[in-house]
């Protein structure tokens, strides 16, 4: 019987880190379903889903990851799941929007927006941040399918922006697709 895992690994970035991690999966007979990786401040992190035919346990995986030679040990979190999802970052929900927020850098900016979304049952699908001089930029990709009134949400965002001295913009994800993805037909973007 096969076993399926969600695996999260983190280490200081260096050439070959992806090769080392995927070699562990391959050597244990694992089939890589999907993965996402990112580098932040010189640290590499990856989340992946894999399926193993043999009796590969969580303990075996942890041991093999710990044996990878690196400046900092490879830290891994492993959770067994019932099924793996292939291509999970495929089509986004129809009500996917992007909220951009810019403010003078200070503590608690991401939390403020995180709380705002959570209190309105808004799921954050993706988040990137950037800092330029003292300007902190946050870009949240959010699913607004649980939001009843766009007018109210826009008004609440405006109030939040004024209160927190943030420049907040809410735009439908389709706008970014339309303006930046030359090869994608508009009918595809709006789902005709």
């Amino acid at each position, binding site marked *: 019987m096969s076993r399926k895992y969600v695996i999260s690994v983190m280490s200081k970035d260096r050439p070959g880190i992806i090769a080392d991690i995927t070699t562990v999966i391959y050597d244990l007979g694992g089939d890589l379903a999907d993965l996402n990786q990112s580098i932040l401040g010189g640290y590499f992190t990856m989340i992946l889903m894999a399926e193993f035919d043999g009796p590969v346990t969580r303990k075996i995986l942890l041991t093999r990851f710990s044996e990878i030679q690196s400046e900092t040990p490879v830290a891994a979190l492993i959770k067994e799941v019932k099924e793996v999802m292939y291509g999970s970052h495929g089509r986004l929900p129809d009500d996917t929007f992007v909220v*951009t927020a810019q403010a003078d850098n200070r503590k608690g900016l991401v939390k403020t927006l995180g709380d705002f979304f959570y209190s309105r049952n808004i799921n954050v699908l993706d988040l990137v941040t950037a800092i330029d001089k003292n300007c902190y930029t946050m*870009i949240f990709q959010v699913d607004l399918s649980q939001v009843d009134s766009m007018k109210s949400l826009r008004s609440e965002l405006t109030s939040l922006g004024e209160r927190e001295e943030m420049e907040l913009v809410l*735009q439908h994800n389709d*706008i970014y697709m339309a303006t*930046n993805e030359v090869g994608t037909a508009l009918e595809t973007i709006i789902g005709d």
Partner: protein
Amino acid sequence: MLRSDQIMATVEMVQKENLDVRTVTMGINLLDCRYGSVKKTCEIVEEKIARFAGDFVEKCDEVAVKYGIPVINKRISVTPAALVGAGFSSDDFVKLAISLDRAAAQAGVDILGGFTAQVEKGITVTDRAFIESIPKALAGTSRLCASINVGSSHKGINMDAVAMIGRTIKDLAEETADSGGFGAAKFVVFCNQPGDNPFMAGAIHGIEEAEVVLNVGVSGPGVIARSLKKTIAKRGTDNLKLDDIAEEIKQITFRVTRCGELIGRQVSKILGVEFGVVDLSLAPTPKIGDSVGEILQILGVDDVGAPGSTAIVALLNDAVKKGGIFASKAVGGLSGAFVPVMEDAVLAEAVGKGALTIEKLEALTCVCSVGLDMVPIPGDVDAATISAIIADEMAIGMINNKTTAARLIPVPGKKAGEVVNFGGLFGKSPIMEVRNVNKSGRFIAWGGRIPAPIHSFKN
């Protein structure tokens, strides 16, 4: 995956450069509305417009709120009224005009276009009655716009119609003298009038069109002006050439067009109406920062009308088309930069300084869309001179296989240099001087037709 640079560039365009969709215009076929009586025809016309456009404005607004991009104008165009009212008398056409005006009000749109006749080759009895009705029809309505096509590259110019229209414009201005001849601002004369133009006053639902379509006019010149300013500030004038500027205009137009078409297609989808075309025209408004003239100033002429203005407009018009045509698979309408004097604060200012004359404006219209638009002239200019100005503009369109138009407003009781103000989107401007008045009467008196140009031997 989110690309922060792309997203912030789009945010910049939408929020800081004030991207909007200038107009979404619903075209409705009224050819099947002609019934035995005028009264019944009018009833059927109103019923049909209400049936298709009943929730048009509401749905446009919904999509605008969802996408965070304002749709500035929601309008309706209809089948040319002279065809809908075949056999009507002049008085009957006035009744049809009032009916169309009422239908526009019920649908919640500010303007309805299509009080129109197409007489580029010949004038029928109905066409004549229609033309006679124009002064009363436009004076007695508030939302109706009229147009007439008097020439085409294939049929030539109908100079009998041009002569009639000179007198009609004078009558129309006199009929609306209390408002500075405002009626004439709602009437435009065309050569090669397109049937899918979403912009007023010349929008119609051409007979070649489907039952109902949605056409979209994309954003105004302000987005391009602000984008150019930003690029020039960032890269410095020493590091930019005109081909770099053209490339920048192409790229911003591409993105603006994609946004406009996205909104239009979404409204089409919700309403279950066929999507027509994207019109790439740069349509200015009197609002500061929404001017084609400002782009000319940014690109190096201190006043619009100075030598170089025509070359800049040619560059601008071409770059807009190139970016827009790549972005959209359904381009149509007028698709060029407009130079409507009263609706563009920088152009109006240039008129006040004496930098922009009718002759220079005519030169600009050789390389852009759409013609002598929203041009206020002294009220005492004679009808033959008005007809002759129109003939000149029509000839440019006929020979160059492009749309040209004339929207001349003789302002009753006012002289060149005095200011006329219509307010709102119609704007204000000093009245332009018309030189050589009363010198074209013998030409206009000929009547007949200017034959269509040869369409081969193009060397």
